């Protein structure tokens, strides 16, 4: 279904997904490992499958995937699963600061924050997070690159890898 193609010790981990189903399953694996307070940064072009991956995370949090809709319009959708999930979409903002829109309280809480278009945040590079970068490799296939920034995310990444082995 998917193969590990390369690894970057401890901080990075790349897989090839052959279908939206496989992408969702990786989201689910990640979702089931979350403990609260994590920040997940989803990066990738329009249509590549960011929301699909977050539907998987929702499944791992015991939410129903059909409750996860695109949050582009409202920018923030809140869901109550095993842990609360803030599904955030910065798509409509070209460049936004943490303090501009009250984002800080959503990103740094006891809840899970899954942020689409995270790179549009001015402070993006300075924030600890698990980045999930999805890119096109074919009509249905995608490359998913997980990158940990910060200690707690290195440990999360290791658990995700051992789960996939």
């Amino acid at each position: 279904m998917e193969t590990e193609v390369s690894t970057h010790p401890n901080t990075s981990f790349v897989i090839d997904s052959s279908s939206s189903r496989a992408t969702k399953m990786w989201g689910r694996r990640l979702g089931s490992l979350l403990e609260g307070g994590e920040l997940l940064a989803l990066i990738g072009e329009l249509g590549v499958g960011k929301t699909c991956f977050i539907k998987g995370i929702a499944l791992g949090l015991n939410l129903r995937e059909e409750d996860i809709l695109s949050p582009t319009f409202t920018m923030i959708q809140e869901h109550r699963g095993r842990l609360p999930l803030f599904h955030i979409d910065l798509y409509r903002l070209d460049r936004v600061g943490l303090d501009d829109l009250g984002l800080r309280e959503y990103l740094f809480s006891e809840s899970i924050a899954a942020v689409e278009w995270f790179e549009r945040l001015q402070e993006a590079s300075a924030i600890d997070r698990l980045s999930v970068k999805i890119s096109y490799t074919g009509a249905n296939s995608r490359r998913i690159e997980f990158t940990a920034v910060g200690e707690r995310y290195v440990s999360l990444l290791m658990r995700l890898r051992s789960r996939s082995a």
Partner: protein
Amino acid sequence: MIVLGIESSCDDAAAAVIETNRPGVAIVRANAIAGQDDIHRPYGGVVPELASRNHILTIEPVVQRALAVAGCQLSDIDGIAVTRGPGLVGSLLVGLMYAKGLSQATGIPLVGVNHLEGHLLAPLLENELTMPYLALVVSGGHTALFEVQAFGRYRRLGATRDDAAGEAFDKVAKLMGLGYPGGKIIDELARRGNPKRIRLPRARVKRAPLDFSFSGLKTAVALFLRSEGAPSTSESDLAASFQEAVVDMLVRPTIAAARELDAETIVLTGGVAANSRLRERLSAAAAADGRRLVAPSFKYCTDNAAMIAIAGSYRLLRGEADPLSIDAQANLPL
């Protein structure tokens, strides 16, 4: 009865005055709106924080304008209807708090209205319709099919599983580098294009024939733009092919629902109801089935306060009112 409607669920602050003596039958005496396009244009979309801050400045003047156009004083108003959700919570709060303040100060009864109920009842502002009827609500934030059974009784038959139809238009326009808002630009380009030029998928949701899904179509357009065929394809052909796919995906479940309910009337409402191809195709499909399509004028399809006033007035006419403790809810269910 004279009803003041107030709506501020997204980026428009709106106020309207209607006169009604029977549920669903009304004369619109004023329909005022304070839009914020210029404020949000640099961001390519509505920024919630800016929308609510600006509503604070415009809500009072827009209500005063509606009263002036209607030739009314506050003392002529018999009831206030205000949107309490769904929408952007900061935006909703401004209109709701203002309405509560008015009610508290004057003793005029207040009812909270679901924004979607406003869209569902909007056609009654211009038409006499017999319930039940079927309604397709399509906008930047919503894509759903409802059976309007009676005032206050609505059954959701299906809805989008991912993107709203209007959002699909905006995002595909962005992928194609066409600018914002995408719906109007694509509609115009598509008139010169061949809708059969590019084959795009029509998604169906498994075991839920009345649900919608547009994210796969968005992906298909993104993939097409990366393909070898892209440079030799005209923008208008791609726009037409994409639009045709969206329209197909909206028309099929709507007609299926109409058959299931044997609905005489199909209502098309929400901002995307302005799309000319959707109106044309849905109208033809309805007619071929012996049904009739009703779409409100554009000013009542997009967000407005007249629809909120008519949606609140059937309760006010019954003598009902909500307590001032009602709150704004971003995900208010219908």
